[in-house]
């Protein structure tokens, strides 16, 4: 059993939890993920590690309530226990050897983009962060990003906060104003990563994306997380989750991510109707 040490509500549907998991904390690196099971009847879900404290023995996760399992997780409070918490899984992000990097985060994906930005900064890179949300109410981790980036741009779809527009617009502006990046790291909804990758291909900038497909074991056994990258089959859990954004078949990944959409929706709506409004704010 793994104790929830702290719980914070970051926005109406995004929650941050600090979990006591010393073995995971000892090894965790930016870009890796964990798999958890809320209770003995629960499904296994992967969540990317948002932060860790090796000395304190804790791992931070940030999740959006999108289905039955994340709702059940969100119902727990500090002091409660999670049944299973395993990791760190997947390969760590490459964070050393860069001069200047643009880190792009979209929606709840910012939770994963932030530790990567932080690790890049610690490894000596100049970090420009571009983060995007649907609207002002959904903004998360603004202060955290500011503290690790040399340049910070925030955009919202409706212009209710920061600049109005998409992260791709902001990135294009930065490049057109003369910024030269060794690499772009994009983490967010598949559709956002697809368009960032299309843009950077045009601009000729190497791009890494973090994939978060459906998976069960997370250790290379089930094959559910397979993706096509550069025409080859890859398993996100052991070969990733980071991949070359110019080689990922995003359209296929988007189709595969919807396999259980109907089942999920039914189950979720049976469980609770409260969060319907915020379901797609990723």
């Amino acid at each position, binding site marked *: 059993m793994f104790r929830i040490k702290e719980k914070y509500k970051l926005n109406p549907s995004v929650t941050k939890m600090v979990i006591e998991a010393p073995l995971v904390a000892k090894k965790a690196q930016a870009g890796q993920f964990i798999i958890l099971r809320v209770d003995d009847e629960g499904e*296994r879900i992967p969540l990317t590690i948002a932060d860790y404290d090796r000395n304190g023995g804790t791992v931070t996760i940030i999740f959006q309530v999108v289905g039955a399992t994340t709702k059940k997780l969100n119902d727990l409070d500090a002091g409660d226990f999670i049944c299973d918490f*395993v990791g760190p899984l997947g390969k760590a992000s490459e964070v050393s050897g860069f001069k200047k990097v643009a880190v792009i985060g979209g929606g709840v994906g910012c939770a994963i983009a932030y530790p990567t930005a932080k690790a890049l900064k610690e490894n000596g890179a100049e970090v420009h962060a571009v983060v995007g949300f649907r609207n002002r109410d959904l903004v998360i981790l603004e202060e955290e990003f500011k503290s690790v980036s040399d340049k910070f741009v925030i955009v919202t779809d409706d212009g209710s906060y920061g600049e109005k527009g998409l992260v791709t617009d902001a990135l294009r502006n930065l490049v057109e104003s003369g910024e030269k990046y060794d690499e772009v790291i994009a983490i967010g909804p598949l559709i956002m990563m697809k368009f960032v990758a299309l843009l950077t291909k045009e601009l000729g900038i190497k791009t890494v994306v973090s994939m978060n497909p459906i998976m069960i*074991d997370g250790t*290379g056994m089930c094959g559910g997380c397979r993706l096509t990258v550069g025409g080859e089959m890859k398993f996100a859990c052991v070969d990733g989750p980071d991949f070359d954004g110019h080689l990922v078949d995003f359209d296929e990944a988007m189709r595969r991510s919807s396999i259980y959409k109907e089942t999920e929706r039914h189950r979720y709506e049976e469980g609770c109707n409260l969060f319907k409004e915020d379901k797609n704010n990723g």
Partner: protein
Amino acid sequence: MANMAPKKNEMPVQAPEVRNKNFSEVALGYTKEQAVDEAQRCLNCKNKPCVSGCPVSIDIPEFVEKVAQGDFEAAYEVIYRQSSLPAVCGRVCPQERQCESKCVRGIKGEPVAIGRLERFVADWHMANEHEKSKSANLQNGKKVAVIGSGPSGLTCAGDLAKMGYSVTIFEALHTAGGVLVYGIPEFRLPKDIVKREIENLKSLGVEIVTNAVIGKTLTVDELFEAGFEAVFIGSGAGLPRFMNIPGESLNGVYSANEFLTRTNLMKAYKEDSQTPIMHAKRVAVVGGGNVAMDAARCAKRLGAEDVYIVYRRSMDEMPARREEVEHAEEEGIIFKTLNNPVEILGNEQNFVNGIKCVRMELGEPDESGRRSPVEIKDSEYVLDVDAVIMSIGTSPNPLIRSTTEGLDTDRRGCIITKDESGLTSRAGVYAGGDAVTGAATVILAMGAGKSSAKAIDEYLKNK
């Protein structure tokens, strides 16, 4: 005087048209009377050919004799000397290719039903378990780590614990049992049975740490640093193989591992399960092994009307146990042998709606000695299905080999072992089961775990 009936006592089973709609165990087990009657068929041969067919060398005539005498607990003790998991082996071992294939009674008639007797004895023991005769042995204070809680790991751990070692098993998943819980379905091996066998191991002092992925959470080297003096790697089969044909990324294409894990480990067949699974109406399972049979029979039980086994060779070459094939046939699984998929087809929403196959014929024998299948020209056709389950094997998991320096693996990625002992290229590190052989059977993995336990004991005694 032995019972000279030429045939085995029939095993009572659930009727096919009933069982293909539920997940309860198919075979119901012998009654006491049937077991005694069957045991009396044993001639108690002096040279015990059956024992030579058993990968863990159970003294078969001795235990069968005890059954014939009605002393079932004594029979259990005989089996337990060699096997830590009798209730499992009695259900999933391919006895017809092992002990029973050597039985003298099989020359004129059917061999003694050794597997069914083993199962009877193990079940009887569980049902009538008296005080534990196996009180924990004197601990010798030496720590051994076992990676993986599947058949090889459980066997190795059990044997070492019996010898007095402090054994800790590290399991990546949230439940112990490996393929016995995620792979083999409830109707063939009830999970309660596995649980009981594991509880048995714990009572011997074996500690099980779940949610520990060796190669990620901890490495093999860190296990040594933590005071373990030897390590056994029984991490099992790994990444599922696909055919590299178009359409394998369509929604509705599963690896057998994924389909079975959702069904068995995550209990997707239960109404209240949180883990989703597609309830397809028409399913093609590609492959001819035991795993393919399990997947096909699960699909049927999940409500599929038509389930096909698509296999490129003929019935004779099929690697699955005969009993599994027969059970599958009885349950209405349709066998498309000498058929090979060339493409999986999908609709506009990218869900599977067909599998294009080509008919095959058998040509010359290949390196495995089996006649290799050759495509028949212009014989392509489409089978209408809405799910495809690929059950064509696995390749070893990379997590341990990529994080353990000096651990040699072959070109496929299987761990190289010196000999039967399972010793790897690293001192104190042993390996066995699918991680070494590639996908094989439960009992072979158990045999490997057993040999390694013996080798680890010798190594640590002389260290």
